């Protein structure tokens, strides 16, 4: 039977349009054998388990040997070293591309099947089965669990499977397979990501520089941070504050971290301790506090104690690459940004993911799904260019950080809750655009210069810088000034009073 099919496949089509886009994508009609004699292509579970166990080895062995002052609580002026990435040997590009294209087609077909009427779910299931075979270690093309596209496709396949099963990943919780991630793994992965790509630092540095400029002569600075995570952003701000030349002495710095309570609050407390210790090592006067979101995850400005004479700065980093975990809903973010205005913040620094432009304004699941695929593919490519360490490290970052984010992104695309840029939202509410200084812009370029030259900085208006990998926008930092606060509603306390409903824990240091 195989003989017959090869012969049949050699024939040209008659009566079919040969000028179609078929040829442009290298999928020549005549390349197929219409009946594939499969033979058993089984996913070898033992092999996969072996790879997993390799990645769960003591992660400290994987950490970069550079001496990061913040993480090691050691005052030092050394900057984190960033290795230049050796160019990966190009594999047999043609085959990889073909397979990659095939995977993309299948993913798109699966998304279409899910997005259509109910009748297609079985088709989606069958396509996902096929995808899993193609991206499993047995079906993958190279030893360390496959090519970039294969690994990316594996995560998207899992995300779609989650949608199909209606599992918790689809509704925004942690995917089951990732609940077993060791906290040390998560931290290590986050640190790796920070070191190996400018994704995180870009936002932090841009925001920090704008904050520095905004509070240049203030004696007291109060930062209200929506999602402090490990507090890495503030370590570098603190360093900058103490090393200002020709300027005033370092101000008193206060940070109020917004938390959700429960386990999150404990992690934030830990962050606060770490920050306090670091500040002490720098000789910087420092105070740390928390402010809890209410049951709806809404931010109440009244929960933040504001001291007369201090410059209030609102910091809002909405990157899903935090080690901390899940995103918060749009209502919560909106309440924070509004609350910043109420608190009379001097500036609002916003770091967020850049949205894909909508394809033809359709806004359907398939379009959004392909957008996410495009985005994460670019992200994946950028990481691949930046990781000089062997595949285990990259595998850790992919598995622990990027995989769950993909699941979340696909889930959100499915539910149609795409969030438009918050910058636009703020502009619409009368927030002013605060220009980004030339110095800030140059600093961003310098930062990117330390990494692969596929990264670009783009300006999007006077107050916004965008980090892009090749043509794909990844993340942006924008600076805003709030509109005058509205008349205080009854439940807000006057600025300066201490609220009895606060549940702060202060770490005073002196």
């Amino acid at each position, binding site marked *: 039977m195989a003989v017959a099919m090869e012969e049949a496949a050699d024939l040209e089509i008659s*009566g079919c349009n040969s000028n179609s886009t*078929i040829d442009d994508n290298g999928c020549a009609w005549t390349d*197929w054998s219409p*009946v594939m004699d499969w033979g058993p292509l089984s996913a070898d579970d033992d092999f996969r388990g072996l790879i997993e166990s390799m990645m769960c080895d003591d992660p400290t062995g994987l950490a970069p040997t550079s001496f990061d002052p913040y993480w090691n609580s050691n005052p030092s002026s050394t900057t984190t070293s960033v290795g230049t990435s050796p160019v990966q040997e190009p594999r047999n590009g043609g085959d990889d*591309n073909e397979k990659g294209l095939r995977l993309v087609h299948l993913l*798109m077909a699966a998304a279409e099947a899910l997005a259509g009427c109910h009748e297609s779910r079985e088709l989606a299931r069958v396509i996902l089965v096929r995808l899993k075979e193609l991206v499993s270690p047995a079906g993958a093309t190279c030893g360390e669990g496959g090519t970039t596209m294969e690994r990316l496709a594996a995560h998207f396949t899992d995300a779609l499977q989650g949608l199909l099963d209606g599992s918790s990943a689809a509704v925004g919780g942690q995917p089951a397979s990732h609940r077993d991630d060791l906290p040390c793994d998560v931290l290590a992965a986050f640190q790796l990501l920070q070191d190996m790509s400018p994704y995180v630092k870009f936002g932090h540095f841009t925001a920090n520089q704008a904050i520095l400029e905004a509070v240049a002569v203030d004696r007291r600075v109060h930062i209200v941070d929506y999602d402090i995570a490990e507090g890495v952003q503030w370590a570098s701000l603190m360093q900058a504050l103490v090393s200002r030349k020709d300027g005033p002495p370092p101000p008193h710095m206060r940070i109020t971290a917004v938390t959700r309570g429960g386990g999150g609050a404990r992690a934030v407390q830990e962050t606060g301790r770490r920050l306090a210790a670091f500040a002490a090592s720098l000789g910087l006067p420092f105070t740390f506090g928390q402010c809890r979101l209410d049951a709806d995850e809404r931010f109440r400005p009244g929960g933040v104690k504001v001291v007369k004479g201090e410059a209030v700065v609102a910091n809002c980093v909405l990157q899903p690459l935090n080690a901390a975990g899940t995103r918060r809903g749009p209502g919560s973010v909106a309440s924070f940004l509004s609350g910043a205005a109420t608190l009379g913040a001097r500036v609002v620094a916003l770091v967020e993911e850049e949205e894909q432009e909508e394809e033809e304004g359709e806004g359907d699941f398939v379009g959004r799904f392909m957008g996410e695929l495009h985005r994460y593919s670019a992200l994946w490519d950028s990481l691949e260019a930046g990781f000089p360490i062997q595949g285990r490290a990259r595998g850790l970052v992919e598995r622990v950080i990027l995989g769950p984010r993909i699941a979340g992104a696909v889930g959100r695309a499915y539910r149609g809750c795409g969030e438009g840029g918050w910058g636009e939202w703020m502009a619409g509410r009368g927030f002013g655009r605060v220009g980004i200084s030339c110095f800030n812009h140059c600093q961003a370029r310098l930062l990117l210069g330390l990494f692969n030259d596929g990264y670009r900085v783009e300006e999007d208006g006077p107050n916004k810088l965008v980090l892009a990998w090749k043509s794909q926008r990844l993340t942006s930092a924008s600076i805003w000034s709030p509109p005058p606060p509205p008349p205080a509603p009854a439940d807000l306390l006057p600025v300066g009073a201490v609220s009895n409903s606060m549940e702060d824990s202060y770490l005073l240091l002196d």
Partner: protein
Amino acid sequence: MIVKKASEIPNQHHHHHMSTSRQSEPDDPSASEKWAANLLQDCAKAISEKDSSKIHHLLWMLNELASPYGDCEQKLASYFLQALFCKATESGERCYKTLVSVAEKSHSFESARKVILKFQEVSPWTTFGHVASNGAILEALEGEAKLHIIDISNTYCTQWPTLLEALATRSDETPHLRLTVVATVGMGGGSVMKEIGQRMEKFARLMGVPFEFHVVRVASQLGELKEEDLGLREDEAVAVNCVGALRRVAVEERGDFMRLLCSLRPRVVTVVEEEADFTSTGSEYVRCFEECLRFYGVFFEMLEESFAPTSNERLSLERECSRSILSVLACDGDGVGDCERREKGSQWFARLMQAFSPMNFSDDVVDDVRALLKRYRSGWSLLPAQGDDSGLYLTWKDEPVVWASAWKP
């Protein structure tokens, strides 16, 4: 590599028209499981509309998901994909010839025998027709001393041992039986029929039935059979047994074939055919496709539920089906050996009425058939023809699948 934007991928059709599969209501939940049927139907439509990018997309998807070794849907996808591909590339006849030659190389008496015997063990698909036909033949030829059965069938003479036994155990004189088998191109080489003949002769000797066995080979198409080829004798009572035979006659020659049968002056003609209508052609490609898909969907499902999960015999039968499917859906011309364009019982009824008159199966025969069905797994049942038809239908899960009927001059 950078993922291309969706707009750069060949024009995708986001909402395939989801037509329903066999006998299902628009919101039949089981329709959702027939993912292959849906894709295949969409592809057939695209081919008839010459929508080349859609054809490309669907053929590609089917190729990714199909397998002749998977579940029912995957198998259907695989075999129908082959037919659609050949249809789209107009390579059906060449492909068919290759499939046939490959099959013939591995075809032997032993293998054919194994397949059909196993099939008869697990399913009444063929034995149903045998029991009904034998019953009608025995009753019609009661009392005759010299019998001549002209057998045009596709079941390798597995029908006749039971008949020989019945002849041998009759109370009166055992009649003399002449069996003339009409063999066409698709029935294996000369060695197969020779082996069959030898075994039949041996069996008849054992039964004590005077017996003669002949094979008549028709060069290309069944429609070319002539009366002279059969060597009829004056003093014998003729019965013509057509099991899966009439459909192998080219559609336009079927009327003539009836007349030929009539000219043989038989006492009884038994006809057994599968219940499907593959006669729509040309502009009605989609309709023919859907009927083909419906029928073979039932057949494959029946095979899956009747055989053990890993069965070579089943695989053999499926491959045979793939040749029929290819022939119906991708071959237009005459140069392809046996035609496979089935017609439904009601359609054959109308044709046969031109030359014969219907004969009802007696109650005894119907009882015999019922007893037969009891020996198999549940799901099978008997349905007497209603209305203008005559004959009996074998049903699988309440769907008529095989039609058996008897006729007299």
